[in-house]
């Protein structure tokens, strides 16, 4: 219970701070953010958009870890955990895509422009979509679990290409891509222009969203496991 209250306070603080703290050219007090050239007020999206994109990958990672676990132990509970993680990952994937597109309209002038990171979040969405399509096409529980586990691992090994390699070798509009004129060499925007309070709130936001994800995942798979147990009881009479 304590950690739920803590999570509530953390998320409340992050939301308030992320939205209301002013961006000024020379930060004087602790609640002022520095001005990042090329981003200005638009920079505030980092507190909400980046965590959703982060959770998309985390959801996929957890799904793959439980897929590996399933293939080793053949325990259907692991498949349920993997399924719920992928469901949540898809939700956050859509959130990241939509928030990113809305932001891009104001920062770059159009909702979609096939920036490498837009391509990669789109590819992740395709992977999730294909994964659910594969699951829905198989009737038998064990077969479904085994094949979707294999596909999830196979898809996961391509994720580093989308998340780490593509944005760095292809030209793009995202802050920190290969030809970003405000940064000497490509890389995440975090390293160089955010001051310490901005970094602190960014990482607090990441932590808060990760805990939120864990909570949602926990409730999700527990309710599914109970549902399965009840179904079995009804069948046995």
């Amino acid at each position, binding site marked *: 219970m304590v950690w739920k209250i803590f999570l509530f306070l953390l998320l409340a603080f992050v939301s308030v701070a992320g939205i209301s703290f002013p961006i000024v050219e020379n930060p004087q007090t602790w609640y002022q953010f520095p001005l990042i050239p090329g981003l200005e007020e638009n920079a505030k999206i980092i507190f909400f958009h980046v965590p959703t994109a982060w959770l998309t990958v985390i959801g996929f990672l957890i799904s793959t870890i439980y897929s590996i676990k399933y293939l080793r132990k053949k325990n259907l509970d692991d498949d349920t955990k993997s399924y719920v993680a992928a469901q949540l990952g898809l939700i956050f994937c859509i959130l990241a895509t939509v928030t990113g597109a809305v932001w891009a309209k104001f920062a770059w002038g159009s909702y979609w422009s096939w920036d490498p990171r837009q391509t990669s979040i789109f590819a992740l969405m395709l992977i999730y979509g294909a994964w659910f399509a594969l699951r829905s096409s198989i009737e038998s529980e*064990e077969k479904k679990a085994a094949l979707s*586990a294999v596909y999830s691992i196979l898809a996961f090994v391509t994720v580093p290409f989308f998340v780490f390699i593509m944005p760095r070798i292809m030209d793009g509009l995202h802050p920190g891509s290969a030809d970003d004129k405000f940064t000497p060499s490509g890389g995440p925007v975090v390293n160089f222009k955010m001051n310490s309070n901005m970094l602190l709130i960014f990482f607090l936001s990441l932590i808060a969203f990760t805990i939120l994800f864990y909570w949602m995942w926990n409730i999700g798979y527990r309710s599914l496991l109970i549902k399965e147990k009840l179904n079995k009881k009804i069948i046995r009479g």
Partner: protein
Amino acid sequence: MKPFALFKKDYHSELRTRYAINSLAMFIIVALSVILFSIGNEKVPQNLTGGLLWVVIFFSAMSGLSRAFVSEEDRGTTLLLQLIAKPSTIFNGKLLFNLILVFLMNIVITLLYSALFEEFIIRNIILFLSTFFLANIGLAVASTIIAAIISKAGAKGTLYPVLSFPILLPLILISVMLTSYSMLGTSFDQALVEIMVLVCYDIIMLTASYMLFDFIWKD
């Protein structure tokens, strides 16, 4: 020698019906003519032709390569194969067959393509050939392992491109980039990073496929 025996068996049964080869050849012609009809007399920008080449290659691969495993399921010979050979042997044999099919198919596509599109001029042949070679290996490996998944799942035809596209996307994106580089005449050294990414993709896919094939095959 066992993988080679499996390959020979596939080769002979393919020659008997010529199903995959005929349908692939027709698919290539259909796809190319659709593109040609839609272009008409318009002038096509150069880098668009490089991208369209990979569109034709991707969809041709999707139309023919799932045969390797689906045909075994159709004929009901999967159990027999499981009895007489190890999973890795089966995968090797099927991969060999698909590799040769992919190379044949893509050579035909590229030759036809460069004959039909005047704007498709390769200025750096070595870069294009190495892209072609590495991309074909990646395409064959990824499509073989996904064909194995598909053959065990219920819906076979429509699911194959859906499952393959996200897996093949890094390969296709890098190949399109490298093809446009070789059309611009970029030197090999400048494109080395992208070539390396392609090599990494091939190695990762090959390793993952060998590790995962056991779980698909023995259910």
